[in-house]
């Protein structure tokens, strides 16, 4: 099982929090995680095509599911969009739900860093979330303090 780097998890958590801003309910963390993936989908589908982005997201989902079991009911459609959220939201705890969202987004960011490199991934994140202050070392291997 490939666990996402703790710094990338931390970044994923911050991105989800940013997406959830305005929402009062903790259960909004899952839609916020999905919204973050959707925000990444737009530039990445232009670059990779919907099929290419869908393949990457499916891999991220597979890696995340090995860590957070309830994500097994979620799937990626042909357009590269996450589906199957409605069922688990009612049965899982808010904490578990939040963890699932963070792990999934962290795995997706980790895959991008693996394939595109830290520099391009960082630029992409900064472009999508220009207001977020992102540490430039977050995607640098072995630079964790």
């Amino acid at each position, binding site marked *: 099982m490939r666990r996402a780097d703790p710094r990338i998890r931390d970044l994923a958590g911050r991105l989800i929090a940013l997406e959830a801003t305005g929402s009062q309910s903790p259960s909004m963390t899952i839609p916020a995680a999905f919204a973050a993936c959707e925000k990444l989908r737009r*530039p990445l*589908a*232009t*670059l*990779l*095509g*919907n*099929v*290419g982005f869908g393949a*990457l997201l499916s891999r991220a989902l597979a890696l995340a599911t090995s860590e957070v079991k309830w994500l097994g009911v979620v799937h990626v459609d042909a357009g590269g969009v996450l589906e199957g959220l409605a069922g688990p939201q009612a049965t899982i705890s808010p904490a578990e739900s939040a963890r699932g969202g963070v792990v999934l987004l962290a795995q997706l960011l980790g895959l991008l860093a693996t*394939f*595109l*490199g830290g*520099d*391009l991934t960082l*630029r*992409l994140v900064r*472009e999508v979330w220009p207001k977020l202050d992102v540490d430039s070392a977050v995607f640098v291997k072995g630079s964790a303090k």
Partner: protein
Amino acid sequence: MKNKTRAAQSLLARVAPKVEIAKLPTGVRGLDDILGGGIPEFSFNIIAGAPGTGKTTMAHQIMFANATAKAPALYFTALGEPALKMLRYQQQFTFFDAAKVSKAVRFVNLSALVLEGDLDAVLAEITEQVTAINPSIVVVDSFRSVMRNMAITGEMAMQSFIQRLTQFLTSWHATTFLIGEYGEEETRGNPLFTVVDGLFWLSQKVERNSVVRKLQILKARGVASVPGLHTVRIGEGGVQAFSRTLGFGRSADKPTRRRRLSMGIPELDKMMGGGVLEGDSLLIAGPSGTGKSALATQFIAAGLRNGEPGIMAIFEERPQGYTARADSFGLNLKTPQAKGKLEIVYLRPLDLSVDETMQEILDAVERVGAKRLVIDSLVSLEMALAPGFREDFRESLYRMIVALTGAGVTILSTVEVEDSFTGFSFSHYTISFLTDDIIRLRYVEIDGQLRKVMVVIKMRGGNHSKDIREYVITDKGVVVIRPRSTEYDGLTTGIPTRTGPRPPQGDEAAPEPKARK
């Protein structure tokens, strides 16, 4: 009536001067020279060739060299190398500037539309993106995969698509590159190849265990490109091209009044009528162990003492060996090296191309402002070349020598020849025509010793001594020791016949330091 026509033409010439075609830099070292300055702006080009020849890399170099946030580049990918992998690999090259990605350089994936086979939809997407982004450079990679639709859509539909695409992109002030894995047979009767302004053909050929990459500009409207096959190398900086005429652009007339330069061996200078003429190409030919490299070292050191920077291009012995030999002769090469007055260029990779070697040497000559150049030796240079390049060896050597001597650089090349004891060859190569001056070193058997003699065979720029002189290699280097001998006939055969009296022979210590070891 005639006068009126002339006046109208003159007015037209003043009002509407002929269109000036701006040229874009390619970012590919050597390619601008081949293209006569660069790629014509707003041209429609194909970069074609077999897989692995560097098409995508070349397109990326052109794109990164020209793209800015105000005049971005748009890279459409279509069923070729997946964009994820393409970016992964391309960023390994030094020209890749991550800061340009997404602002100055944008990637758009057309794969889904191409798979659907709807050319109108493909054109509509390209049109929409180009209209929105207003790029100065457009790349479609791979256009070959778009063309595969021809079987479904028919030739006329494809021709119409190509026409509309060309007209749209040209009108939109974009310089376009279509990338494709085409075979040469596909160029015949293909409407695409008729329409395009530029056709860059990349190829690679396997010869024995070596791969030789070549570039040919099959078509280039609006520029005077250099015809023929040019060597290409893909390195950390991306694609680099070496023009067939590499070096010729820098050639200039030799100065009319040329100085005589010291060889660093006073007696040899006398034999040469005062030294080698500045800007000459001098060949030192001799068998192994006769001191060719020693002589070359003394030649370079003499130049350095006289304030003339130098380059030693060596292909066999390592640089440390050269500096150590110089030390043993009391010649300090390390200080001039440290001061940037001397570079020892050691070239011994596998599959070396002669054009690359030339480029390395020309670059080094330019860096240090070299006045003297040593190539030690031509035999090992040829051996270091990939087999496919050996055929071009003489032609390339000729180009380099003409270019450098034309610029006033004095070249000393060494060549190893086998001593036959019946003949007196200068070289295995027919290269003497490349040289202005030739000095031949050889072994002769005299009085029970294998001694060394030298003779100046040819000096194009003037008279020279005809004497055959004995020399030794001492801790001062090559030293000419005796006046010409009149006691022997047949010295050039290596087995002379004594014609004079035999002087008494003492027990002579071996004169050479390495013989004492």
